[in-house]
């Protein structure tokens, strides 16, 4: 082989190494996964107002983003996952199967919440009669379903807000 082709191969090899690096970074760019959290209110004041309203106003722009948001409809009872909408774990989702979900601070729980106002085993969300129900497990600060305290098992429908400590969870389609 001639000198020039060897030199070309020498630099070609370096270019190839960087081609792999850049291609890998390209793949990573297209590989975003997880959840996207969009804040609905502007600032604390607006957020407080948004809380006070019954939350049925879905921002129209959400459908335009092309992301499945799980529209809030109480007609469809089948919920596919549990989403945390407020608190330290905001943005976390858990897919729902047929197994009950324990929520609390203990590491043995399905949803482990790092929240000083939660109990170790705070509440349980479990499937019954084709729907989901929630019961309080004797927590210190209580579990609230749409501002109503949960004592006995209560039906937990899509769109209902379940509040425990500083955390709010919702059922999603």
């Amino acid at each position, binding site marked *: 082989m001639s000198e020039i082709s060897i030199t070309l191969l020498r630099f070609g090899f370096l270019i190839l*190494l960087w081609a792999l690096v850049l291609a890998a970074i390209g793949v990573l760019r297209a590989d975003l996964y*997880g959840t996207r959290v969009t804040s609905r209110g502007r600032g604390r004041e607006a957020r407080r107002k948004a809380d006070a309203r019954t939350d049925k106003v879905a921002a129209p722009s*959400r459908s335009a983003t092309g992301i499945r948001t799980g529209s809030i409809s109480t007609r469809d009872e089948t919920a596919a996952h549990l989403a945390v909408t407020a608190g330290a774990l905001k943005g976390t989702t858990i897919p729902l199967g047929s197994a009950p979900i324990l929520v609390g601070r203990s590491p043995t729980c399905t949803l482990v919440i790092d929240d000083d106002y939660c109990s170790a085993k705070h509440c349980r969300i479990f499937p019954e009669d084709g729907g989901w129900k929630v019961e309080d497990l004797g927590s210190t600060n209580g579990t609230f379903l749409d501002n109503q305290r949960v004592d006995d098992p209560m039906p937990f429908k899509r769109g209902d807000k379940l509040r425990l400590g500083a955390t709010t969870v919702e059922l999603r389609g």
Partner: protein
Amino acid sequence: MATVAELEVRTGRRAELALLGIAWVIIVLSRALVDYHADFLELAPLAIYGGGAAALMLACHLIIRRYAPSADPVLLPAVFAINGVGLAMIRRIDFAYAQYRGRETDFGAAQIGWTIAGVILAMAVILVIRDHRKLRRFTYTAGVVGLVLYLLPLVPGLGVEINGARIWIDVFGRSLQPGEFAKIAMVVFFAGYLVTNRDTLALAGPKILGLRFPRPRDMGPLLVVWAAALLLMIYQRDLGASLLFFGIFLGMLYVATQRISWVITGVALFGVGAVAAGIVFPHVRSRYDAWLHALDPEVYSSGTSEQLVRGLFGMASGGLFGTGLGQGRPDLVPYAESDFIIASIGEELGLTGLMALLVLYLIVVQRAFRTSIGVRDGFGKLLAAGLGFSLALQVFIVVGGVTRVIPLTGLTTPWLAYGGSSMLANWIVVGLLLRVSDQARRARTEASA
């Protein structure tokens, strides 16, 4: 209040195949260049090498497609490319030893064997461990196994001392470095231990200089690990492994508790230990001397900094683009195929090639941390973060030592340097990372399907 939307995930298997294609060209081209400059280029052996590499990579790809379909697509091609460059470089050093030194070595062929064994082990990890959470059951078993592995070289009759470091054991005439495997066992142990005990370790104690420090009575585990790292340094004369061991614990402790004060306490403790070791032990002090006064003629002629300085000269003669694969003199540096492979690569591929390799390491580590963020269970988070951090720290210790950023220590560069134990252990890490990343991304792909 906020809305939470799931982002769709692609499994990325096709992207993985394409990246594996580029990695394959790198593997074959590097070997062809090495063979050409050694006047050794024949089509048949090269075709066997290329065919074998392609078969191995394709087999991995198919196994992952079948058994870990959502695993990270970038991990495997990056590791294969690093490994391929390492194989070519070690073969190149074999040729250089034969040509200039009259020394017949066969590191290259041995390393190919270790690579194949490593890849098979990684795939075995994926096939056997279907759920990484099962590893949590072996928390304390892993701790004991790790400890025993670290101590094995000290057993009389079994341990072998090579170049002043007592980190090898003799198994069927082959020397093995059990510390490499102990590293993985320790990450599993720390992950399991910290996930259950992090609440106590995160408790706030006294406030000093605006930083909340942990309570003194919770310092126990940190002190135990610190003492173990110091003992490792004293009895095995293995600075690198003790730094790696302590660093992994500190890194995982920080990930588990989010308290920067642990890192400050730990680094201060290690600093005290390192300075004290430098005062008390002459072999540690000579390492520090070689690092701080490497170019001092007195230190150089005494031989302590000779290897380091030769490595620096090698990298300097490589410059920006290198001398070209097969056109340098890597044989001038002692241990060019293992401890100083970074210097050999710096010489023949230049800064450009070395940086490409370092960015590939960075990508691997980044994927480990991304997996750690994505996976849901605390054990998996700590496991992935610990494995990623151990790789990052190991590369830093080696490259930092060779480039005189920190004192030189004898650690292997993952997948790159010659060494069977290191190759097997680091491929096991790849298998574990692929498994955890599959778990991290699978739930998402299923939810959005």
